[in-house]
């Protein structure tokens, strides 16, 4: 039965994927049908399955957020019952935030008072970590790559300092950002696009079955 279920789920995924792709490719494009009478209606109808399926995805994702919150609560309730103090703090914070929001008719000041400062501070700590890491890179990686990393980091940082004396360095920094970094960024974008295509094809062919959980 499990095999049948697995085959059916793979078949459904394949069918839905193909239907969505065809709908997106052919739908809402009357020119594909020669612009003859009724081509607009045909194009509209072809676009319908893709729209419906994608809207269903959005609804499922929205529902999954609720399920995720519930799951998180259950996990921490279990951990708190076994004596985990941090889980108890999480649950208490959750309850207090809900109470605050409801009792104050949608007041989100807790977000500004707690979450934004904490996350901003964590982001600022990244500056410290990267700086200290940059200062120790040659100590742990005394090779050409480590040296290259240090040189590039220093050039880019110096280039961002608004001092007239550093204008030549800024020109070099701009070149680094415009050429090598841009090339790398384009390569990353190409890689992402190719990866997305490959992942989609694998999912359609049943090689990847993350949907089975």
């Amino acid at each position, binding site marked *: 039965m499990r095999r049948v279920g697995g085959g059916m789920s793979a078949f459904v995924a394949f069918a839905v994927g193909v239907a969505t792709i065809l709908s997106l490719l052919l739908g809402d494009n009357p020119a594909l049908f020669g612009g003859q009478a009724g081509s607009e209606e045909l194009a509209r109808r072809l676009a319908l399955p893709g729209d419906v399926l994608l809207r269903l995805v959005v609804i499922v*994702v929205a529902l999954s957020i609720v399920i995720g919150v519930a799951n998180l609560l259950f996990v921490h309730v279990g951990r708190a019952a076994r004596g985990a103090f941090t889980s108890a703090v999480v649950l208490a914070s959750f309850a207090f935030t809900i109470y605050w929001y409801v009792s104050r008719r949608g007041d989100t000041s807790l977000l500004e008072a707690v979450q934004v400062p904490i996350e901003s501070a964590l982001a600022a700590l990244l500056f410290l970590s990267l700086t200290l890491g940059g200062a120790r890179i040659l100590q742990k990686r005394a090779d050409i790559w480590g040296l290259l990393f240090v040189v590039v980091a220093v050039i880019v940082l110096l280039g961002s300092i*608004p001092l007239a004396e550093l204008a030549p360095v800024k020109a070099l920094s701009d070149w680094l950002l415009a050429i090598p970094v841009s090339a790398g960024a384009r390569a990353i974008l190409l890689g992402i696009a190719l990866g997305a295509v490959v992942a989609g094809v694998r999912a359609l062919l049943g090689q990847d079955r993350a949907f089975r959980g």
Partner: protein
Amino acid sequence: MSEEFNWLEYVEHEESAPEPERRGRLSRLLSRRPCLPGRPRLRLPRLRRRFRLAGLAFWRRRPKDSAPEQESATSLLDQRAERPLEDLDERLQFLRERSISPSQPSADAQQALYEVDDVLVTPEIAQKPGGVISAGALSKAQRQQVELLQDIVGGATQAEEPAGRRFLPSQALFSLSAAPRMIAAAALLALVSLPFASSDFAVGALPPSEFPEERPGFAAVYEALDGLTGSDFALVALEYGPAAAGELDSLADLVLRHVFARGVKPLIVSSNPIAIAHARNIIRAINRSVAGSGISLLPGYDYHILRFLPGGALGIRELNENFADVVKVSAKGISTGLQLDSLDRVKSIVLISDSAETVRNWAEQVVAASDNAPLLAFTSYSAAPIAQVYADASAEILGLVFGYRDAYTYGEELQASFGGVPPAPANNQSSADGTRDSQANQPQEADAMGERPQATAEPAPTETPLPSATPPPTATPAPTSTALPTATDLPTATATLETIVIVEVRSPQQVRIRRGPTTADDILRLAQTGDTFEVIGANGDGSWYQIALANGLEGWIAAFLVDEGRTTRAAFEAGRASASARSPTERVVLERGFLLSLGKNGPRFYQADAPILSDIHEFVLMRDRSQEAPRLEAMTLGTLAAVLLIVVGNVLSAFGALRGRADPNDRRGSFDD
């Protein structure tokens, strides 16, 4: 704690359960069916084989000429329920055993897993309730990577801790090895704090006050927003979380102020639920900054925070495909009253994001489908390199503004555009030859809904030279450089008994208060019937009064639209206090002349998509800019210190390596690995 749940035992127990218990329900039912002696029972696996031969799983079948060990892991996983464990490949059995008890691999297992052992690393999990950091133990390879990272960034090495002992941050904080890092961190913190304490520590130049010529997209973004009018809508996507708020809030604040100052209603959306809540707080901060002017932004009227867009890129796509439906519901789940049929009703799409991927999603899913709304991208500094590539290659993205330095330049341009300097009456004086542009003097008043033109509502100013800057109101009489009645003969014993000249709006329609005594001057705000203002001057022929506004600004109002009178300052202030006692909602509604019905569900506003005012300068002029320069100077100092630290640290490391202290065999983490 002795009754603690042990998931490892649970896994062991489940995997070693008798085979019939792991069959499916239908299989168990079939196995219970009576059968004739000597006849085999009908077993489900045969049915399964038939299904498989029918082609349901054809893409997973093994090629005929392939070896058994080439069968895919997915296929083996699927067959797990119907195959006994002993049928599994030997190496898979050893891998399974190792995953259950990783610390005791047998000699046979080590031999069988040769060359696979380093690839298929089994994570070791130690269940320790009460600890988050210490909950997961790491494999050898993972521990080596962690050690390398900790060596580089300067954390304590967990591997040095005794097994099962929790990592205590205090040990790292006060250990001798952490002292240099603590000193360096404290020095950095002190350095970046100095500009906030004193302006003597300013280093480097502030960003330019004008858009750099080498970045035409920057100016294009500003001009696109500046060209909006009160009848337009701007879609503002806030796509960043609290971690990026420190950098992007300044850009979001400027964009929203620019939009509000142009009288445009922003439609705020996001695929990030936290950003939805954060947007509300940003607008509250803007509201607080302009509170002194009597202006209050009203949710559902002056701006709309739309519902959350779940699904990432798909949610963004849904905004494009079902725009009319999305804009009907606010973030609080109530109706917005907006009747916008398509995205084409939006004149500008503003994206403020901390991720280059989000920029790509918006450009592909939304902007590409819009005929007349380009994407104005505002990103964090970290997202800029990749976003810039996309902005350069994509026709849908008009320009890219990024980082706090760009925010400063944008703010300077905004301030200059909206008159950071108080308006000079000289701007409204006659030209050198004593003539005026008759076209500019044509009355072009709008009605309450901002439609234009309408019948004459303000007189054309005469060519009489206007008075110079009028002195502010004091205990002395009101300015009398014109035919205005003076108040010199009125009692002025105390400030409260001081008599002042006031005007009261008598026009049944809204009256515009302008920056100067011509209809060509900018509109500062609107006045309602019955509003009173203190007169502080007039133009030469008395056709315009110069009045004091509540926010400390000065404006001009046409004389024929008001009645002049006198009162004591005490009475005048008392009347103003009474007016200000109205709720912000009431004041905004009265100020803007919109219909309000108090239903059982609270106030409801009509014509929510109608235009409102234009050029509400308070949103720009009343912006708090006191921390802008110190923040930029702190950034400069921090960058300088970081460069210094990196150079000194690595020079010392290089000297150490030359003196032979470095281990030449230590190649952990090198790119060759």
